[in-house]
């Protein structure tokens, strides 16, 4: 049975006179290579040109701060659970008095590490996050000489207070409303379910 109709029946037959001269076949091959001379080159001359990427490209992660500059992450661990590559680890700590401007919730991530060598940039962590804290951005993860450098800690992941990372292309109003709509089971808390 044939699935594609592209299979050819191979037969070992004697070459005709024209074929055994090989010259027509050679000229045909030469024409093919010559046609490639005028084709558009596939190369992107990297340092001068960069490759175009989609607006919703999934690159290096960012840990967002809220409007007041406090870290949004509450170290719930849902991103680590959602991660199919098990690239995310974290260690939670309790917020002390006087740290309200630093951390939004009472609990925060003391250590938050993503292993960029394990990460497959699927974006499931972003989908799982209930606090709008982690996002994938259009930045490309830089290469490094050691494996250790590829484990990104909070110093790299958390955005700077003065230099916010733009995630509006990934966090559109539609996405936001979908993530907060209580109709969907994944957005319901335990209390929500008790009320129903």
């Amino acid at each position, binding site marked *: 049975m044939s699935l594609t109709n592209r299979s050819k029946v191979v037969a070992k037959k004697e070459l005709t006179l024209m074929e055994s001269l090989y010259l027509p076949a050679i000229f045909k*091959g*030469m024409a093919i*290579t010559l046609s490639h001379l005028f*084709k558009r*080159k*596939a190369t992107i001359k990297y340092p001068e040109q960069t490759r175009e990427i989609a607006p919703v490209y999934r690159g290096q992660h960012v840990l967002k701060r809220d409007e007041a500059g406090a870290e949004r992450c509450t170290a719930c661990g849902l991103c680590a659970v959602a991660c199919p590559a098990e690239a995310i680890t974290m260690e939670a700590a309790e917020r002390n008095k006087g740290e309200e401007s630093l951390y939004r919730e009472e609990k925060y991530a003391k250590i938050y590490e993503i292993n960029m060598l394990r990460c497959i940039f699927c974006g499931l962590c972003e989908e799982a996050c209930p606090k709008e804290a982690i996002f994938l951005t259009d930045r490309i993860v830089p290469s490094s000489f050691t494996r250790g450098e590829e484990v990104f800690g909070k110093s790299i992941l958390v955005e700077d207070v003065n230099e916010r990372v733009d995630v509006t292309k990934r966090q559109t109003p539609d996405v936001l409303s979908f993530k907060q709509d209580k109709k969907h089971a994944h957005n319901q808390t335990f209390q929500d379910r008790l009320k129903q």
Partner: protein
Amino acid sequence: MDQIIIYKIILCVIVFAVTLGAAAYMTWGERKLASWLQDRVGPNRAGPFGLLQPIADGLKMLFKEEMIPTHSNKWLFILGPSFFMLTACMTGAVIPWGAGFTIDGTYFPMQIADINIGLLYLLGVISIGVYGIMIGGWSSNNKFALLGALRASSQMISYEVAMGLALIALVMLTGTLNLGEIVAQQDADYAYIVYQPLGFLIFLICAFAETNRAPFDLPESESELVGGFHTEYSSMKLGFFLFAEYINMFISSAVMASLYFGGYNFPFQHELGLEGNLLSAIQTAVFLGKILIFIFIFMWVRWTLPRFRYDQLMNLGWKVLLPLAIFNIFITGLVMYFTGKL
């Protein structure tokens, strides 16, 4: 008399420089063309369009560590590449690069040595060229190098036979072995490709085999023999082998252009109304253009056709090209007899 000797020395230097320069930039051209045929961009980092790449490559070759294997015959090991380079450069002496210039009533020919057995000299020097490969491969004391050298010598000897026979049919037409005269005859008459299409095809195929170019690059065959005859070579000695291949290519293009495509002559050259030195300069430029076209064909074929298997190579040489060349001589003789040229 002194004047002509000084002129010949200057011409020697010019031809040498042009040949070496052309060979250097043919490496660049080859890499560019190869990448274009494969939808790539090619060397473009050293200078504009990568034009300084040959200089960078040459410097790299010069500064590489020189290695001579302990168990090799040191003098023969050095002699191999030198010999190969020498014979490659020697062939340029008999080629008429142009019609010549007349300055203050003195005639300056554009040919270093106008000898009456130019064609024979050419074949002789080409067949000496195989010694460079053979000596280099044998003195390396390495299995792969020896195999490559053996392949090279048997290949070159096999194809020289067909090449010589293809030329005999041409010589029957020209009646002379003098390259300058052969080119001059094509000014009065048509280019010899019109009379010798089969002979040209045989000569072209043999030229590919003689210069060890793909699809006949069995002596080198980097994918099966490591590097063939130059496996043990490093530094500029390797550079000489690689460089001489390009010089051979340049010279054989020049030979094909002058024997079959009218050399420096071009159609309607006398109807242009140009005289003397200006016409001569244009003719030299046209000749270089013809050489460039042949070099392009050399490279184009290399990046199209896969390498022959060894038995196929021998079959083609002895069982196809040799009978074809003899057949060509026969037909040429018959035609000459019935047209009353004989």
